[in-house]
């Protein structure tokens, strides 16, 4: 359908990589965000400050730099550890894995603040109602707090996901064959920058609109239990 002078398949393959990267980073990022948010709100001094350091550092440096540090830095770090165990070969982590780590860390740092705000916004009586019937704090978190947190956090998380979706393009600098990289390749072979950059822009835009529709659907679904 999209032949695009023979590069259509390549762009499609790149788009798939972009989507995979975005979704994998989202999963990692959400886990980190929930962990960091609960750590920030915990009574434990150590947990609080680890989480604060994480969110401050990640939010304090440009995403591109995070990507480069993770990609080159983690390979060096892993090699240094491997050398301790007598393993001297050259080790490389895949751009995809580096991308998931870097984007997951970034998403997690920003999203943890969204979660923290949402958790604080839930009336403490909700938790108390769970306590009075004998539920454990962990069960209360999973069954009472978190489902309500989603509803409050969804608009903010959706916003951050749209940023994440486009940040995936940064991973092309370390050689991931994502949509951005495939586009650049197509441009250099075909010498038709306008066509291919426009095509890439259109695809990113389409993904964004799809995401927005999905978020809207989720918000609709959550609103069934109304405003309270």
């Amino acid at each position: 359908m999209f032949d695009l002078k023979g590069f259509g398949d390549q762009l499609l393959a790149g788009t798939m990589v972009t989507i995979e990267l975005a979704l994998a980073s989202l999963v990692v990022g959400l886990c980190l965000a929930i962990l960091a948010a609960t750590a920030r709100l915990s009574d434990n001094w150590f947990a609080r400050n680890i989480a604060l350091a994480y969110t401050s550092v990640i939010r304090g440096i440009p995403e591109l730099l995070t990507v480069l540090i993770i990609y080159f830095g983690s390979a060096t770090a892993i090699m240094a550890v491997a050398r301790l165990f007598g393993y001297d070969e050259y080790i490389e982590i895949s751009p995809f894995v580096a991308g998931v780590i870097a984007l997951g860390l970034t998403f997690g740092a920003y999203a943890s603040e969204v979660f923290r705000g949402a958790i604080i916004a839930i009336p403490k009586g909700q938790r108390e109602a769970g306590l009075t019937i004998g539920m454990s704090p962990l069960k209360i978190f999973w069954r009472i707090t978190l489902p309500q947190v989603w509803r409050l956090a969804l608009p903010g998380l959706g916003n951050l996901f749209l940023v994440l979706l486009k940040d995936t393009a940064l991973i092309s600098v370390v050689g991931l064959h994502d949509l951005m990289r495939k586009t650049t390749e197509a441009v250099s072979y075909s010498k038709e920058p306008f066509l291919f950059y426009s095509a890439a822009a259109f695809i990113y835009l389409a993904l964004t609109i799809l995401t927005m529709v999905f978020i809207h659907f989720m918000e609709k679904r959550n609103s069934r239990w109304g405003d309270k």
Partner: protein
Amino acid sequence: MPENSVICLKNIHKSFGDLKVLKGIDLQAHEHDVISIIGSSGSGKSTFLRCINLLETPTEGEIWITGEKLKLARNKKGDLDASDPRQLAAMRARVGFVFQNFNLWPHKTLLENIIEGPTQVLGKSKDEAIAYAEQLLRRVGLEERKDFYPSQISGGQQQRVAITRTLAMDPQLILFDEPTSALDPELVGEVLGVMRDLAGEGRTMLIVTHEMQFAREVSNKVMFLHQGQVEEFGHPDQVFGNPTSERCREFISSVY
């Protein structure tokens, strides 16, 4: 004897920083006791009720529930907290608590609110929990609303569901923390009606309330708190009709 009472509280103290809210309160409830706790706002009655199941951690005191002593240890803030979280959870499951603001879970339907404790805490099967929940909802006249969400029903109905949620745990004691204070006046009656039925069934209840007429009719004992201390305790006819304490007399005549 703490061993043969449903609940026994000894010398409960509670301070928030320098502010002493409770200054040594004792209370014992036996089976079928309905005890109303009255007093002006700031007298510490809600704090006292919340200390019973450790929603508020007392600064000093002993708590016995159904003959079992709650194990307490001092925490970092200097209050007493449960030293055995499992014991605390098990004891809380036996003590119902009805909140002023209902605190139903908005993301769950009424039925889901009610079966949460039985399935998640008591380990009942879902079918069994649902059958019991429907039976209890029928009693408060809300069975056909079971798939509604809390935001879709009135405050009085929400409180009736909150009471039902407590009953589904088959508690040995129910604590009511100003259960009608957040309701519009025309909705108070339906909630008091349900509570009156529970008292009539012989349930053991502790009720913090401003509904003096109700307290007088329903309870067999009344405790009047003033500035964190028990100022008057006795049969409702005596407390309301012939209080010995001057402060209690003033309070009664101002609200009743």
